[in-house]
């Protein structure tokens, strides 16, 4: 290449290069992402502006709402623990092994995620009342275990679990996908059975994912409404959880109580997510 002195002088490569400012990058990215944050903050601020401590106290002093808080905390916790119990082995199997028909299992697991929640509730209702000869699943549960499911507390947990577990499985699968399998392979050469490899090598590394899956399952359970309404009903002092409280209070025109309970759910969710994440971080360290 033989550049003349003039062209060499004007060539971009001949001039000192400056990368320029990153301000526009942060304005665009922050602006787009921030709009969502702004929406959430605006909604919460509107709720806060609408209600007052008086409404909170009035709502919390109602025995039905106290009972709903209690049932919500218990059912969400049971549902989240059950979800982890099931999602951890399932996520591990799906992550580590290829087998015929895996696509079908993948699709089945995603069904609760994509279906309208009401359909989950309806399907559970039909499952428990579908005639099996001269009986049905509901009657079998009552006769064998003395457990009434439909329109009772177990229905709340089952409805929450049906959706929450699908999210927990997805989280656990991604968790195990991200863990290198080499250490597990070496453990196999050291004389281990698969069960020991899972318990002593894979599971300790999956702590962060387990905490995340637990959090997601708990939060999904807290927000579940449609399946609970159909399968467990919304009977006050019996199957009422906070999400149904909001619906029940709204349906009788008690907007202030509905907003107070909504904010309570926000606080409960934030507290649980915060605590679980904090504990999770410490566990990792």
């Amino acid at each position, binding site marked *: 290449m033989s550049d003349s002195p003039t062209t060499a002088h004007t060539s971009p490569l001949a001039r000192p290069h400056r990368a320029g400012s990153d301000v526009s990058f942060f304005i665009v990215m922050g602006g787009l992402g921030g709009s969502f944050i702004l929406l959430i903050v605006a909604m919460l601020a509107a709720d806060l502006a609408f209600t007052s401590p008086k409404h909170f106290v009035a709502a919390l002093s109602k025995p039905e709402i106290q009972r709903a808080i209690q049932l919500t905390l218990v059912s969400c916790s049971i549902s989240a623990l059950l979800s982890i119990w099931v999602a951890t082995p399932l996520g591990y199997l799906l992550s580590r092994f290829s087998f015929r028909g895996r696509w079908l299992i993948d699709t089945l697991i995603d069904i609760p995620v994509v279906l309208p929640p009401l359909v989950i509730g309806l399907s559970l209702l039909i499952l428990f009342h579908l005639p099996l000869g001269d009986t049905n699943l509901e009657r079998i549960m009552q006769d064998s275990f003395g457990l009434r499911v439909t329109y009772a507390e177990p229905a709340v947990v089952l409805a929450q679990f049906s959706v929450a577990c699908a999210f927990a499985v997805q989280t656990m699968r991604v968790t195990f996908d991200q863990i290198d399998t*080499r250490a597990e392979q070496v453990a196999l050469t050291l004389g281990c059975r698969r069960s020991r490899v899972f318990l002593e090598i894979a599971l300790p590394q999956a702590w962060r994912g387990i905490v995340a899956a637990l959090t997601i399952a708990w939060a999904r359970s807290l927000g579940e409404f449609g399946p609970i309404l159909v399968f467990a009903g919304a009977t006050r002092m019996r199957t009422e959880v906070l999400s149904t409280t909001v619906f029940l209070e709204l349906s009788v025109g008690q907007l202030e109580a509905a907003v107070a309970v909504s904010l309570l759910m926000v606080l409960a969710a934030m507290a649980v997510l915060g605590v679980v994440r904090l504990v999770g971080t410490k566990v990792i360290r």
Partner: protein
Amino acid sequence: MIELHDITIRSGPFALTNVDLSIPENTYAVLMGGTGQGKTTILEAICGLRAVTSGRVLLNGSDMTCWKPGDRGVGYVPQDLALFPMMTVRGHLEFALRVRHCSTAMIKERVAELAHVLGIESLLARRVTNLSGGESQRVALGRALSFRPRVLLMDEPLNALDESTRDRLCELLRSVQKQTGLTTLHVTHSRVEARNLAEKLFVLESGQLREQPLTQLNPLPTENTKT
């Protein structure tokens, strides 16, 4: 003794066909070859982590082609070491012994012996995530030797180490092999490493595994390394 008879391994588009190998007992063998030739695949086939399409894998005369990895008694040091991130150094040395239900006293004695031989006594209580490259290599070697394996397989164990650490570890590998009499197969790219350690040399090129004389490892005129 490690023997491969007419081994064929297929994995997607990659294939190794009709591979034969024989390493006599108590021999330190080195396997060399270019990247992507299938050296790691051969090691994985010997330790049972990769199924062979056809052929036989014999260890100390027993046909182990269909045996599970854990039943073969192979000490394996993979290229990436694959240490257990949530375990201490002591946990690594104890792991295979606990799997075999050894007594506490026996485990303690074996861990002390290994830690002494490998020079990692001061590291026993440490987690492996903060170890240096050389220390990690010693732990991986200790883990592989802990249960007194039939044979030892090492996949580029001294890769990515500085020269002095590599020389020290070469010395260690040689003395460990002398003490234990283990039949060893060591994969490497380094002619210096091979020259220091090999009693037998195998080269994998274009899918063909051949034994080569050790004179192949004599320093090249252009080679400027200490031996």
